[in-house]
């Protein structure tokens, strides 16, 4: 069959209005520049509503959404159980002078759920808790330096950015050290060169950076890192903001067979209700207690209630196993559709957060064309970011995705007779 091509007239009208009052129209990862909307005319710019695994843009176009709001949609948009818990809490109170007892209940649930957690500290965004983790590590060790893995993303505070970014000064990143992913020998060397000065090693559980095939940890990598950090008194921080609960409800460190000292969660924590969480070991509790670190909405009760419902439901449905199965079903189908049309589609990363790249050319232009052809037929993929599986994605949705993907491959192939 031939799928209709979406029109984005209203999106464009709203975007033009937005540019007058909002910097860049839509800034950040949901915007067309950082979101790599290539070409921008093929992408929706504003959403109207969302339900389950779908969202609708302001032009009424419906999408099977593989970005899941960049992760927060884990059970399906507007999940009835999570939203019922949130609404029930709303009737009691949300942003109050004293935190609701639901905060304690949520912390207890996090400690019971997350393998390495002896305590839980709540905030709003991933950046809040990665920053909290760095401050905790520095407070605990009285050291300055932090080791990052090249290709990292840990938020937007100046310490997480690079020296060439606007608004960042060299002093902001003067204590940042860098090492390649999976290169334990280089990490060990870097630690030796900075012996006694490294406060923390921060990393995602696997390399899911943009523009490159995602890379899983080499056999024994994390165990060696754990041993090195313990031996050298370095706080091991796992940024599980993106992967958290999609690989393992006990934490992605547990999934890969080691224990972090500090672990950061956000996206999948409450199915879109705004809360983030830093969990850590008992030995660091006094250090985090000592920080001057809080926010106006960090103890709002509604997201805590939503988080409790979300985590309990993820456990109940064995969400990580479900995500892996759906991710494999989808990506195996995509690879087959690609091969049938002469494309080499490389799938990398974990199936629940799969990353796609067409490798027939060395410029990613074919890939960008294919993604755009999918998007304008209702399958919301990202050009250069990992994707996300949610629990509401059905086998029927996957079948439809594969049909659209097949048509998109054919369209792109027809445009490039010099290759296909």
């Amino acid at each position: 069959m031939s799928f209709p091509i979406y029109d984005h007239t209203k999106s464009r009208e709203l975007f033009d209005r937005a540019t007058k009052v909002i910097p860049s129209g839509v800034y950040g990862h949901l915007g067309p520049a950082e979101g790599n909307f290539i070409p921008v005319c093929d992408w929706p710019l504003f959403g109207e509503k969302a339900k389950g695994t779908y969202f609708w843009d302001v032009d009424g176009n419906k999408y099977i959404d593989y970005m899941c709001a960049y992760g927060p949609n884990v059970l399906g948009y507007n999940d009835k159980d999570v939203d019922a818990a949130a609404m029930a809490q709303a009737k009691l109170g949300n942003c109050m002078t004293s935190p609701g007892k639901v905060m304690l209940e949520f912390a207890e649930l996090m400690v019971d759920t997350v393998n390495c957690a002896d305590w839980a500290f709540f905030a709003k965004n991933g950046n809040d808790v990665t920053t909290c983790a760095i401050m905790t590590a520095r407070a605990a060790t009285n050291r300055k330096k932090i080791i990052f893995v090249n290709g990292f993303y840990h938020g937007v505070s100046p310490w997480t950015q690079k020296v060439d970014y606007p608004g960042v000064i060299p002093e902001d990143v003067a204590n940042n050290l860098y090492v390649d992913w999976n290169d334990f020998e280089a990490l060990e060397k870097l630690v030796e060169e900075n012996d006694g000065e490294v406060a923390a090693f921060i990393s995602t559980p696997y390399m899911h950076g943009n523009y490159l095939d995602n890379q899983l940890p080499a056999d024994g990598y994390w165990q060696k890192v754990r041993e090195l950090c313990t031996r050298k008194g370095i706080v091991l921080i796992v940024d599980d903001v993106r992967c958290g609960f999609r690989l393992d409800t006990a934490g992605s460190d547990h999934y890969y067979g080691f224990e972090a000292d500090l672990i950061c969660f956000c996206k999948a924590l409450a199915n879109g209700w705004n809360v983030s969480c830093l969990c850590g070991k008992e030995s660091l509790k006094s250090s985090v207690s000592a920080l001057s670190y809080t926010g106006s909405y960090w103890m709002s009760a509604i997201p805590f209630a939503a988080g409790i419902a979300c985590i309990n439901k993820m456990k109940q449905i064995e969400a990580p196993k479900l995500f892996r199965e759906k991710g494999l079903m989808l990506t195996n189908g995509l690879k087959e559709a690609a091969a049938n049309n002469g494309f080499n589609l490389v799938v990398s990363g974990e199936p629940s957060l799969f990353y796609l790249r067409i490798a027939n050319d060395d410029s990613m232009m074919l890939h960008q064309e294919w993604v755009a052809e999918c998007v304008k037929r209702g399958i919301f993929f990202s050009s250069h970011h990992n994707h996300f599986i949610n629990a509401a994605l059905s086998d029927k949705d996957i079948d439809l995705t594969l049909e659209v993907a097949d048509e998109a491959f054919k369209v792109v192939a027809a445009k490039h007779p010099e290759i296909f």
Partner: protein
Amino acid sequence: MTDSKTMAYINMYAVLGTLENLCEIDPVASAIISNQKPISIGFDVAGGPKATIYFKNGRCRMEQGCSQCDVKLPFSSCEKFNGLIDGTVTPIPTKGFQHIGFLLKGFTALTDRLSALMRPTPEDLQDREFFETSTRLMFYTISVALSQIANNDEIGKFSAHLIPDGEIAFGIKDDVAATIRVKDHRLVTIKQRCEKPRAFMEFADIDLARDLFDGKVNAVACIGEGKIEMKGMINMIDNLNRILDRVALYLA
């Protein structure tokens, strides 16, 4: 946030290097050298760039090195050379005194013309032809400055070390274009259209390019508005844009 050595490389290859394009696209400049006998001027900057500008057959081209020049202008430091461009230093040739006439008249007239086009008054830009010539020359200057910053400026080098090998097509739609060639994180600008880009960044028109060069609009916003087309290896474009941000610091 800037350094004099990088500035010297920009002044040599991006600013003086734009004389090549000036003589090609500006009738006033080409008239200045139309009857000029072949002559070359070498710039020898201690601890900095060395290059020679050749004038021959009504054309101008720049090459690296200055061992074969007719007139040689030595500079004891990058700061002194930058002073030449700022108009605060008057060089004394060590070779080719017999050609001093061209240096004082023809060459000075060319650089004055370049300055007029590169630092125009708002009134000048009301003339559409002047505006377009000025903007095209700015494009070439900026294109070359990108590579000089990537290779010399400390923060520029940081951006460049994140750019993979390949060629970036950089241009204004249906107008001027350049190729930024990247090899082992060193950049070279070739003032020709890119035939096989790994990444592509094109401004919608010359007016938009001008606004971007003048800092009136931001590239990120323009991408959303569809006024800048980008595709291909976005990590090449992304890091090139970081260097582009620094061009404004040096050329302000």
